[in-house]
């Protein structure tokens, strides 16, 4: 896999993770852009990309 594809894939995972985190924030009664959910989503996205 070339570097551009890898970067695109990473961006996709980061966006997906951020969306997931935002939805968790709302579902669990927090504000949509609160740090906890977004950070959790980004960590999950990076983990799925790396593994």
């Amino acid at each position: 896999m070339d570097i551009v594809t890898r970067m695109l894939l990473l961006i996709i995972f980061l966006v997906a993770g951020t969306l997931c985190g935002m939805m968790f924030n709302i579902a669990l009664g927090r504000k949509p852009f609160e740090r906890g959910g977004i950070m959790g989503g980004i960590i999950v996205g990076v983990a799925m990309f790396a593994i």
Partner: protein
Amino acid sequence: MSGEVKDMGLLKRLVLSPWRTDEKARMDRGRLTLLLFMAVLVVIIIFSSYIRVPIQTVLIILAVVIMVIGRAKVQDLMAGLILHPIMAMTAGFLIAGALGLAGGFDVLIKGLAWLAEVEIVPGLPLLGWVGVAVILANIPTIMPMPCGRILAAALMLGVFLFAAALAAAYGLDMESNEASVMISALVAGFIVNAAASCGPSTLGGIGGIGEGNLGLPIGRSARAQSAGILIATGICTLVIALVVQPVGG
């Protein structure tokens, strides 16, 4: 030998089939095991009011007897796909039971609570409870097993306990509708994630089956599926929280 077999009666042929080595012995062993299996099932159904032995015990004993007659080894059974889903779920439940008895879930909740309170600078937590909930709900797809039931069965109780701790951390009464919705949403998100997690697994599972049928290399669609599952987990949690009301709510 084949002449002796021809002279035997059918019943004697079947009964002696486990010890025979002629070319027809395999077929006779098959007939004997099938007859035994059907007979046991019929007996269980007819005498279900009188037989108090659990069906699982009977089936396990029957499986061992059939294995002995059919000269099958455990590896022969485990190598096939036939036993895979039920074995996966059984393994998950056994792990969950072992973890529960050994206090593993208490340690898990304490560890997650500690992680939720890790601070970047004093007063500013890195993940908080919601961040840890996001990670916990996505663990099955981060570590995809060949069957989603393995982690689903093993960790379900842990997720439920964490969701209850999450509600308590936010000062919600366990009897309140808000706490019920919060617990339902997190557990449902975890279920969706676990159920879909055998898709991206390169160890086998539904994703591997699909790729095999399409002639694709194993793991070609794994990352695409992972990204989709990640979003779907969030959507499920949100829908449950916004739309579904707790029982009696």
